[in-house]
């Protein structure tokens, strides 16, 4: 008889929510989105140890499938890649990584994209704030004329520190979560 109640859970899916579009990053070391959602039990230990307070937990804004799972809002607070959260995850939804250069490079949270039409540096006003926030300067991001940022997607781990640091409002550099990129590639028929 009690089994009837969970049947009504999908009705909560009908509640209005901001967007189905995944706007937020997952913590470092997160597996691919489906696998991550399969393993994450929403215990909040990653958010508890995060010394940067960048990991917060989803409410209903991401739908029931994301409820209580961790997210990182890069514009509010980027990830400093200290890897504390990967060490504590009980179900290995976040794979264990070390805060070494190799460990940092192994992170794949997303990729940064520069909006060249609003970026100060591309308008000839030297800025370079995002470059100085980047934890992998010279690799993930290089500078051109007037400190114009150039993101190299093969090295960018998507920590979001550049997005947090950007002085333009709205941000001229955005980190797109890896789940979104994969989804976009899948729609175009390219395997991720």
């Amino acid at each position, binding site marked *: 008889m*009690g089994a009837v*109640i969970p049947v009504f859970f*999908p009705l909560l899916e009908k509640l209005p929510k901001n967007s189905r579009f995944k706007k937020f990053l997952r913590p470092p070391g997160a597996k691919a989105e489906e696998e991550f959602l399969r393993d994450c039990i929403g215990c909040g230990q990653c*958010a508890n*140890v995060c010394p*940067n307070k960048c990991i*917060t937990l989803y409410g209903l804004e991401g739908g029931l499938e994301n409820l209580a*799972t961790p997210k990182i809002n890069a514009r509010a607070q980027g990830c400093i890649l200290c890897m504390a959260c990967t060490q504590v995850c009980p*179900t290995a939804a976040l794979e264990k990584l070390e805060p070494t250069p190799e460990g940092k490079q192994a992170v794949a949270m997303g990729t940064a994209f520069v909006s060249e039409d609003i970026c100060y540096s591309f308008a000839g006003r030297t800025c370079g704030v995002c470059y100085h926030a980047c934890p992998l300067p010279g690799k993930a991001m290089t500078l051109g004329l007037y400190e114009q940022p150039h993101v190299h997607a093969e090295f960018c781990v998507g920590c979001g520190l550049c997005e947090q640091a950007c002085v333009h409002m709205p941000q001229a550099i955005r980190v797109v979560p890896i789940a979104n990129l994969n989804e976009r590639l899948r729609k175009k028929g390219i395997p991720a």
Partner: protein
Amino acid sequence: MVLSIFTRFSVIGLLCTLAMLTEYNNLKLAYNLPRLVELSSGKSMRVFYEFMDSFLAHFGDPGEVAQRNGGMTWSIRLMGVPFTDPVAALSVMAKSRRWELGFALGLVLPLGMALVFGRIFCSYLCPASLLFFAIARFRGILGKFLYFPEISLSRGFAWGLLFGGLAGAVWLGHGIWSLALPYFALGQTLFQGIAFGTLSISLGSLIVFSILDLCLGRQFTCRYVCPTGRLLGFIGRKSIISISREATQCLTSCQSCIDVCPMKINPKLDETVDCSLCGECLVICPTNCLSIGLRSRKITYETA
């Protein structure tokens, strides 16, 4: 009974402390110096920081100790030792069919406790049951002026919720347990409120459980709704330690233990399936014929 209230308050205090570790970790990494904390966040944060620093220093290096503790009643680490909720383990097993080693090891203590003591989690550790205990007292006071029904359900309802919830977890995500389990909802609400200053959706489900408790019966959620209680009751139905009764001293007409039992079991029939060893019947028994001890063989055969 006093002991059970004290231990449950301690669990709530522990949950609050763990949630506050988030703030402490942040201050520790950012400043690591009380004077800088005061300059950036004010006097009160300095007091908080210094208190946590000196408190955690009892166990070793404060920063490291803070990283070794975390989580909620759902899945918690205390000094690096993991504890896993049996329902969480079932949920993960149902969805990904694979347990991490630490996750599986975390099951040892909760399951061992249930095998030895029965549903002891429900009356001594569960923070939500303290809330329902308070509501039961409130209900008792209100009951002098209003009529509240006492509704009985079969145990199948909670079993249904457990399996329905498992199906929901496979279909949607493990996060739905933060709505379906009272103590997880309480932990989530405390954690979100203290660590981030936000209201959690789990508070809504906690309010629903409280209303159920107030309107439908004393400790209604614990008895008929909570899937974890059902599971622990099943695991601990033949627990080593249980309530035993001296039949020769027991008065036939006396009903006080049946009336007082929050789990609505019948000590007079030596029924100990859902007993959480709360000890309320021991206190109220006029002849002191009830005691907590090793389960005798005779009773095991009778209930089996």
